[in-house]
């Protein structure tokens, strides 16, 4: 799906590069969680995936297409959709269904197909009843689900979410995660950027960014075994993991475990 080879990116006018020498490849159907401290370059990396930014050095390939070729932009953006942090800044139209239609309209699809896609995507995020509602009257969670529907209406192969849950309450966050789990089951490639480690428990791979470089990559179990590095990465261990470690140190638990309540219970009372 994505192949980044020695990618560096420096914002125009900036002295230090936002990304330096990133090597990363993501396969179809993966759910990659991208974590890291503020300013570590997560958003910059996300925008490279969608050709919103072009690497200043190195190559970024999306489905084998190089992002620095103008002729590929169109194809790349239909395959990779993005959802940003603030839903208010990505909703274009005043009426829910018209906003979902915005992407397909840009693709020049026939009216009947746009109607079909809009309805399907609104059902997928559970907003079909709101389809004629004005967008300003939606709650934060509903707005973010609308933004996801708008991204899905492009029928992409990959969805990149840049802190899409940061402005949501627990219920809104759970709603979004449920949609992501659903999409993952259908084979969608997901790149999820977040600050909250309790949100990445479904990810198949975790990539930690630090100061514009990939600091670490591996699976969930591996991540939580790297506890010494968490401070350096600017991340916080989930309370459940810390708790299970304390239990292990006191020999109350055979092994430390992931932040799943079920796993902890199974280990506690086998």
């Amino acid at each position, binding site marked *: 799906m994505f192949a980044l080879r020695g990618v560096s990116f420096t914002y125009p006018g900036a002295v230090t590069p936002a990304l330096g020498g990133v090597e990363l490849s993501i396969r179809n159907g993966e759910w990659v969680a991208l974590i890291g401290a503020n300013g570590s370059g997560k958003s910059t990396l996300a925008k490279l995936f969608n050709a919103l930014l072009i690497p200043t050095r190195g190559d970024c390939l999306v489905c084998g297409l190089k992002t620095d070729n103008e002729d590929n932009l169109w194809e790349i953006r239909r395959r990779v959709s993005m959802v940003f942090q603030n839903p208010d800044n990505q909703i*274009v139209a005043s009426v829910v269904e018209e906003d979902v239609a915005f992407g*397909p309209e840009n693709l020049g699809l026939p009216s009947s197909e746009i109607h079909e896609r809009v309805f399907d995507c609104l059902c997928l995020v559970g907003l079909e009843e709101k389809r004629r509602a004005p967008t300003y009257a939606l709650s934060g969670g509903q707005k973010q689900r609308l933004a996801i529907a708008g991204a899905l209406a492009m029928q992409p192969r990959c969805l990149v979410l840049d802190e899409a849950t940061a402005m949501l309450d627990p219920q809104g966050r759970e709603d979004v995660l449920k949609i992501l789990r659903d999409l993952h089951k259908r084979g969608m490639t997901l790149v999820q950027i977040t600050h909250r480690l309790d949100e990445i428990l479904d990810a198949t791979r975790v990539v930690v960014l630090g100061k514009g470089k990939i600091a670490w990559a591996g699976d969930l179990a591996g991540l939580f075994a790297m506890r010494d590095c968490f401070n350096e990465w600017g991340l916080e261990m989930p309370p459940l993991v810390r708790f299970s470690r304390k239990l292990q140190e006191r020999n109350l638990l055979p092994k430390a475990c992931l932040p799943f309540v079920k796993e902890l219970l199974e280990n506690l009372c086998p």
Partner: protein
Amino acid sequence: MKFLNHLTLGQYIPADSPVHRLDPRCKILSVVLLLAGIFMMKHPVAFIAWGIFLLFLSRFSRIPFRVVIQGARPVIILVLFTAGIHLFLTRGITLWEWGPLSVTKEGVGMAFRMGLRLSFLVLFAGFLTLTTSPMELSDGLESLFRPFQRFGFPAHEMAMMMTIALRFIPTLFDETDRILRAQLARGADLDHGGILRRMKAFIPVLVPLFVIVFQRAEDLAQAMEARCYRGGTGRSRMNPLRWKRTDTFAMAGTLVIVAIFVLMDLGA
């Protein structure tokens, strides 16, 4: 909420009427024709005829006449002002004099004529916004101006700007409110002192507002680009405009009515 509704949806009142169902282009062109006709109206009989037509239109588009009148309320002052100017500043046979002010016979006629013309203009134009959603309206305008794109007129950009402006008005209201309250909480004094002092007190509100607007504009541009937006070329619509036979009839009907009214006026 009602206030926001008014801002984002304009005066649009959804209903299922023959006028609502017309193509927005047909309605825009008809209104232009009607306005041209009203500009030429002179004779009292013509005013009565136009008035009857107005009632008929209100009936036909299922918009209560009361609502039609309400929509024109904001311009009452303008109407009165225009009528007043004509009342006092038209020369002719003096009817009444008081100091430098004088009312002439011609002045009374002009005041009535101009006042009524202006009211009718607003009332008829109101039907367009009452029966057409802003989306349809911008689609219609884009389509009508598209031929001028060849000469560099930004028809699509204009329509897109209208759509986005409507979308962001409520957001900006929220934002202004938030900043205002933040500044008030820090002890800003916005409602004391002379006009100059008050205006100065608003600077700390306006500056962050501008910063936020530019930030939002940049984010939005990026989000639109990410959704494959690249201007009007190659873009389709979910609900494309369709010119139907009823639109042709309505257009022809308007033309005939305006022609009859104008001829009647000239003949009388």
